[in-house]
């Protein structure tokens, strides 16, 4: 009701009865990455599959996954790193049911003050770098990029700060550099004049898988048709998302940014289909930088769409 904000309509038991559970809740954190999710909902792709999808915003991948473990969400969109950490650490058996985005060139970028001391990645040793959270893809990618460039990534001090705050902190010199994603990259350049110094998604982290959709193993087992339906709808939407003209109005709406910014932001690569060998890069990188203490085989976590 008023308290929960949910529609009080009776649980619609499957539009066409072709799925086990027709009403599902998807939790995600606000970002451009979820544009296809909204396309699927807005364009009626879910409906076509007999799904009634409720979307809930959460502040972090952790919170989203925890809500799912607690039973308040069926599917979550999350960065892979916290999702894999949750798989290892929460005791819950998690599955990946759809890919979401990977890093496109110039979407995962270190910025620094224009005209400041830090001009390239080579200047970062011993510096203070702001990232959105520690032990996530952010700091890991920075470390990886530095390693690739033969720099001592251990000398860096990472401080945690939410994306919107990073450009301002960089501009004020509170930190020497910061890792930002869109739209903060574009907005940061516009509002604070911070300037990109390095794309961290290059070399070994080129086109690096960033985020996907996951569910509990239990849910996947009990609702194979629901999962398949979700996968099909996301597949369609992701295809649409390759067209900028489709995406821009969506991100204007979901991220609340203006048309100009929307037209300027660089988009990540949207994916839906799951490629185990591509995704295996994530746990491997995590092992390399100590986020995981042993190798994790991602293949058993992946739920491929059934061939129906």
């Amino acid at each position, binding site marked *: 009701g008023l308290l929960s904000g949910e529609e009080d309509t009776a649980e619609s038991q499957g539009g066409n009865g072709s799925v086990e559970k027709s009403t599902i809740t998807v939790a995600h954190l606000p970002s451009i990455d979820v544009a296809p999710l909204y396309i699927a909902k807005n364009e009626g792709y879910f409906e076509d599959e007999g799904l009634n999808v409720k979307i809930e915003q959460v502040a972090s991948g952790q919170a989203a996954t925890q809500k799912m*473990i607690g039973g308040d*969400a069926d599917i979550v969109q999350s960065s892979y790193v916290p999702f894999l950490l949750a798989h290892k650490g929460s005791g819950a058996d998690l599955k990946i049911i759809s890919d979401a985005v990977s890093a496109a060139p110039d979407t995962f970028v270190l910025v620094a003050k224009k005209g400041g001391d830090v001009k390239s990645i080579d200047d970062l040793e011993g510096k203070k770098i702001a990232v959105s959270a520690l032990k996530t893809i952010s700091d890991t990618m920075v470390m990886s990029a530095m390693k690739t460039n033969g720099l001592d990534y251990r000398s860096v001090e990472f401080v945690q700060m939410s994306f*919107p705050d990073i450009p301002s902190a960089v501009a004020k010199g509170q930190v020497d550099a910061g890792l930002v994603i869109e739209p903060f990259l574009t907005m940061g350049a516009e509002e604070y004049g911070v300037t990109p110094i390095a794309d961290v998604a290059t070399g070994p982290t080129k086109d690096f898988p960033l985020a996907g959709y996951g569910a509990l193993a239990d849910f996947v087992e009990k609702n194979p048709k629901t999962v398949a339906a979700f996968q099909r709808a996301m597949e369609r939407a992701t295809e649409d998302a390759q067209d900028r003209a489709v995406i821009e109005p969506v991100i204007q709406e979901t991220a609340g940014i203006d048309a100009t910014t929307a037209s300027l932001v660089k988009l990540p690569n949207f994916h839906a289909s799951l490629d185990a060998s591509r995704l295996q890069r994530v746990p491997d990188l995590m092992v390399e930088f100590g986020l995981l203490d042993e190798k994790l085989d991602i293949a058993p976590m992946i739920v491929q769409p059934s061939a129906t």
Partner: protein
Amino acid sequence: MKPLVRNLVGLIAFLGLWELVVRLGLVQEEDVPPATVVLTRIVDLLGQEAFLRDIIATVLAWLIALGIAAAIGIPLGLVLGNFPRVRLATRAVVEFLRPIPSVALIPLVLVSIGGGPEAKITLAVYAALWPILYNTIYAFDEIDPLLIDTARSCGVPKAGILASVALPHAAPFVFTGIRISASVGLIVIVSTEFIAGSNVGIGSVILEAAYGAGRTDIVLAGTVVAGLIGYLANEGLEKLSGKLFKWHKATTAEVA
């Protein structure tokens, strides 16, 4: 000057200072939009039905939490105030639990209680309980022993003393506890919406605005609305306590 005029002068001075600091460029407009921009945004938002729903969801959760906190805190405070042994026996547990931050409990609540409104209500009850509990206990410590003796000599049973002497004596200070709890509770509700996400609520508006597009104006608008709600609640509670506790005003020397 009339009190109301003074109230306004104070508020306007604050808003003016805020506006000035931004307009003079002491802080960047992108970081902190000026007061006028935020106020305009508030007016915009208040015109949107969705935002009103957010407010209602937050306020409802808050009232429920406050009610539960009071329903637990006051009786518990009376018992702990009255029975020193119970107080001693529970102190270790109470003192241990009190400083545990709700942010640390969010994951635990999400996985064990769920992510709906019950999560934020639980956390808010947890945080709002302490001021009510503490002020009740302390009010008890200050009671004139002669009043208790009077009641005892009248043959009033223990429970009767709690209800008819301890409670009225403590009531004004308990009310102050409720006022503190009200703001703490609101803070926790909005913060939980903000940190853990929620379908509706002022905190989720702030969250969306912050993470989606870094819309500082909406973030601050939401924040100010939360503050305004807290302010209104405080005024209401103060008026009410003035009405309820006339005797207290008269028997304490208020004017300097």
